[in-house]
């Protein structure tokens, strides 16, 4: 089994409780990503879900840590991100909130 890449944000997220769904609920149409200058999704997301791969010229979406805030939907200048909430109790489950 290959370990998923370790990211700095993981240290922050390990305290949270997730019931991760097998399917990605963040739908990104990447047709505009290359020409997108600032790529605001890559820095606005509070859990670093969006990482731009300059070699593959693609976004990698780490939906597992998503806290379902919706910032990515709001900041995408091309309105190409849709947040489709995870089904039946999946996703983040705040223990304190």
């Amino acid at each position, binding site marked *: 089994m290959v370990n998923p890449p370790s990211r700095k*944000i993981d240290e*922050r*997220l390990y*305290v*949270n409780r997730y*019931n991760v769904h097998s399917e990605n609920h963040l739908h990104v149409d990447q047709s505009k990503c290359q020409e997108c200058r*600032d790529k*605001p999704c890559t*820095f*606005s997301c*509070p*859990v*670093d879900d969006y990482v731009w791969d300059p070699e593959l010229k693609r976004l990698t979406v780490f939906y597992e840590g998503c*806290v*379902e*805030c*919706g*910032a990515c*939907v*709001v*900041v995408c200048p091309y309105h190409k991100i849709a*947040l*489709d*909430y*995870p*089904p*039946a*109790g999946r*996703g*983040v*489950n*705040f*223990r*304190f*909130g």
Partner: protein
Amino acid sequence: MSTEKFDAIVVGAGPAGTSAALTMAKGGLSVALIERGESPGAKNVFGGVVYKWPLEEMIPKFWEKAPIERKIIDHRMVILGKDSGFSVSYKDDYLGMETRGGFTALRSRFDPWFAQQAEEAGATLVTSMPVSEVIEEGGRVVGIRAGRGKENELYAQAIVAADGVMSTVLQKAGIRGPPAAEDVAIGLKEVIELPSDTIESRFNLKRGYGARLDYLGSVARGKSGGGFVYTNSNTLSVGIAVLLSHLLELRCKPYEILDEFKSHPVVAPLLEGGRVKEYQAHLIPEGGLQSIPPLASRGVLAVGDAAMLCLYPEGTNMAMASGVMAGKTILESKKTGDFSIQRLMLYERLMKESYIFKEHSRKKNYHNVLTSGDRFNTDYPDAITEIMRNILVVDGVDRGTKHAAARKVIRDKVGYVRVLRDLYRDIWSALPW
């Protein structure tokens, strides 16, 4: 539960939705309260303060049974400079009686308790059910489709959209789109554990009582933002909020601003030794009056964050109050058997006469101040720091000379005319009190 029909469907079991459901259930209506989290509060985030009004009108003497963290008796407002803080505090045991000064709460405990009150009144609570579509008929929304695969459909005479700032119901019904970046702040919060004794000694509190500290000024690198530290029983709610459009200008990660806030010399000692138990984020409506969508449209009543009703520092009370009014409106419709779109407009009329709109109208300049009020985040905090440092260091220079220097700082940094104009108008939009 396929194709069931209720008098009303409430989407979202937060403060707004539960208030609506409770109001209607008490009036004898059949109400479905739909929540996408596995329990109410599981998907919710807020700063941490709930107010006495209008909760008390729904649940008399709620403070005897609600899961309250601490009753707030100390309200502190701190204007942060880069390394300094200028505080104003009001502390009064009177505020702690019957939670007059509000109380801190945690969503995952408060929301299930609140939703349970609606259930006991007769509402049907359904959890783990995200709404995926609205069902439309003859120009109005008549039901919702929830879940995937099973395609459960629920129908009702009226729909209450209490599904938060990113409201699926309002978006699917075409009533509004996602909010604009200048109309929302991104809020980040950590729940930090400390022994209750430590909290009480550190914040100078009696057992069971609490303090709320609201930070303004230099929180978000000169952009519009604020911070807070609220005391819970054995945790602190520590967070920041920054206008999303300003975050785009800063091009930094929002948690960098949270980390800067937590390590600010005025804030850090309060958190020392604490263990982070949870990291949360949420969007906060900050658009003020001009961002409020049609409140009653196409058979849908918008309440709480879905209706963009937050107004710093209040939110839960406005959510609850709007929920109550939506509930009363639908009760009226039930009485007369008239659920027409026209009849549901009563909600908008009630809202326009209410505390909520009075406050939003009073702070109608709020959004302007947020988007263009750099002086509140830079000029004033800098001026306060410079003046206070100069005045409080006794170094043989007489106070007359120092006061003259202070006047010069105000003149150079902001200008007398602008100070007067701000005192007359904008400051009242920027301050929490």
